[in-house]
């Protein structure tokens, strides 16, 4: 179990983490979801001892992050946000190098290298220099090289940034497999769909604060209204004009020509809404129902969209 208590972190003037406290259970696939600059990497770097912890306390499986660094390093694996590989070296050479930083018998290491290269679909290209890899392949190797010491706790910092769909699927399947093997995984992302698909519990982080935490079902409960309608008009709209037409619903502007409409019994009242909109000078060109999602949770909590 990972216990994070009252953790704060400043970079000079910037408060990257503000009094963060939560727990991650053993064996859990835990998501840390938040926009760029929210403080995800900072928290990961405190957890993996790269950054010194000065305010608050963190224990991992009962070991203190301050005093038990040696033991912790053996059980932790970190997939850094940046691709941290030697581009000049081949995948094989990188794997050997990173593996040899831990005490692993050479025959065992050899088998594991083969196993993880196959698992990430890189075995055939194992003798090519990393510089010749695609972005997705580099990401996969970035993950594979963190697994050689078979860490019980795995921290993955945005491991799918900039990858092709094929690589993304490889990575998701890999993570699910690692999770089934009983590892604790902390997964950070700014893609809400990834967190929804993969994670058992999710903490939403914004401006260094945890603003919500729970399973996705628990998080959806935060939403005032379960569903929403996404209405797109042919021309630019003024959300106040739309509000006047349907005063009994909540209107939130989505883009210059679209809005979200939400309210009680929304689905049943769709014909009613559409009828009322007929009198609006702006023609409705698209309508669809939006199921509850973390995007909307974030939107409701912060008034901002998660993307960008």
């Amino acid at each position: 179990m990972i216990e994070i208590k009252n953790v704060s972190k400043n970079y000079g003037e910037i408060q990257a983490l503000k009094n963060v406290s939560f727990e991650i259970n053993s064996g859990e696939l835990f998501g840390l979801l938040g926009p760029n600059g929210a403080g995800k990497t900072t928290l990961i770097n405190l957890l993996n001892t790269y950054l010194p912890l000065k305010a608050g306390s963190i224990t991992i499986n009962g070991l203190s992050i301050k005093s038990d660094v040696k033991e912790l390093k053996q059980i932790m694996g970190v997939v850094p946000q940046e691709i941290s590989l030697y581009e000049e070296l081949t995948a094989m050479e990188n794997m050997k190098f990173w593996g040899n930083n831990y005490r692993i018998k050479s025959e065992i290491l050899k088998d594991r290298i083969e196993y993880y290269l196959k698992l990430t679909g890189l075995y055939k290209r194992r003798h090519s220099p990393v510089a010749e890899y695609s972005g997705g392949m580099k990401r996969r190797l970035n993950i594979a090289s963190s697994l050689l010491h078979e860490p019980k706790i795995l921290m993955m910092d945005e491991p799918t940034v900039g990858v092709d769909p094929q690589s993304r699927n490889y990575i998701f399947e890999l993570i699910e497999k690692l999770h089934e093997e009983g590892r604790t995984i902390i997964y950070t992302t700014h893609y809400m769909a990834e967190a929804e698909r993969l994670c058992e519990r999710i903490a939403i982080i914004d401006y260094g604060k945890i603003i919500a935490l729970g399973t996705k079902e628990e998080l959806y409960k935060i939403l005032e209204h379960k569903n929403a309608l996404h209405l797109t008009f042919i021309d630019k709209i003024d959300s106040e004009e739309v509000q006047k037409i349907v005063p009994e619903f909540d209107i939130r502007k989505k883009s210059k020509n679209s809005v979200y409409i939400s309210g009680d019994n929304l689905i049943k009242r769709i014909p009613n809404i559409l009828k009322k909109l007929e009198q609006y000078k702006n023609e409705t060109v698209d309508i669809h129902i939006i199921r509850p999602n973390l995007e909307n949770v974030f939107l409701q909590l912060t008034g901002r969209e998660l993307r960008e």
Partner: protein
Amino acid sequence: MKVFNLIKKDIQIFLKSKSSVVLTYLVPMILSLVFGLVFGGVGGSSGMNEIKILLVDGDKTEISREFTSALDSLPELIVNTEYTKNDSTYLLDVKTMDELIIKGKRGLGIYIPAGFADKLKQGTKLPLEIHYDPKNQIQYGMVNGLLQKTIMSKFPMVMLNGLMSKSEEFLGKARHEMFQSEMETTIKNYFPVGEGDVMKGSTGSLPAEAPNIFDNPLEIEQVKLLGEEKSNPMYSQYVAGMAVLFLLFSVTYSGASLLEEKNAGTIKRLLISPISRGQILTAKMIFTSIVGISQLTVLFIFGWLVFGLNIFQAIPTLLVLIVVTSLACSALGIFIAAICNNLRTVQSLSTLIILTMSLLGGSMVPTIVMPKYLQTVGKFTLNYWAMHGFNSIFWRNLHLGDIMLDVAVLFGIFIVFYFTGVRIFKKRLVTY
């Protein structure tokens, strides 16, 4: 073993980059070849300071003493006939003179053999020995010229005798005697000199081996004390300079690779693994030194193959010097990388430091052509001590005991730069 793993990785990366291999080994070879060829001939040079030379007077006559002080009074020369040992001063002998030259304390010494004054009176060619280190070919040429000038101005009768013998050859004996007596009368008429003072030596028959005046009146025996077998003496002088210069460039490259790793994030990953900052820096230092040692070794072997550089006469001493020089340079490289924030600063700062040091320290131009104060400044460079050490081995056939000071200074440079570099780097490896 983790340090070994780190070093292995750096070597793998190094060997995969063709440009760094070429830059480390091939370019210095080619450049030292060019330098060796360019400076292989006689190096004409101007603007030198006065040359300090040694002199042993084996003749010990009025005339030899006069000759000695005439040389000393020349603005170009400072002549020492004595040496001090344990606070006492002794007159130089040939053996001590040679030792001093071999040790590089002086570039050159003159030996006036017994019989010098007699030969002068007879008007025959004057015997002199110049003992020197062939590295100082330029000094030798200058001193040789100065000796001739001094002889001709101080002891003109030597030249006159030559003139006489030429005229006898041309005019025949009878007419020559006529010419001679007429000359004598003419000179007596115009100059207040006593009978017989003119052309003292030429009365009676002329010496058989009277010098041709168009020749050098001196019969100088060259005694090359060192490096006689070297096929290209100037090359040896330059190879050490070149080697140190390129060593500095290649070590800053590998020092800078620490910054590169920091930017690429691999340092971060290393620090997350069970690896300490100390191990990372130690490994980088060892790797850099390995590159340096291999570079110097390759370059010296090349020098031996092409220019007959004398690398075998003191192998252990040479190895010690190669190692400390590489350590000192590597530490400097790490230090430069440590104080810079990015690769571009490393490049420009290291180029500035390396070129300045190499110029002042004698890697590019022999320090002897520089003004005195610059020569003193030059002693504060790594290049000076490394080159001094290497030249002591290649030229003076000296051994470990004799280059202890060079080794100590270089080791000191290593300690100072490495430990300050590491201190700074340890703080900067992580950006909090």
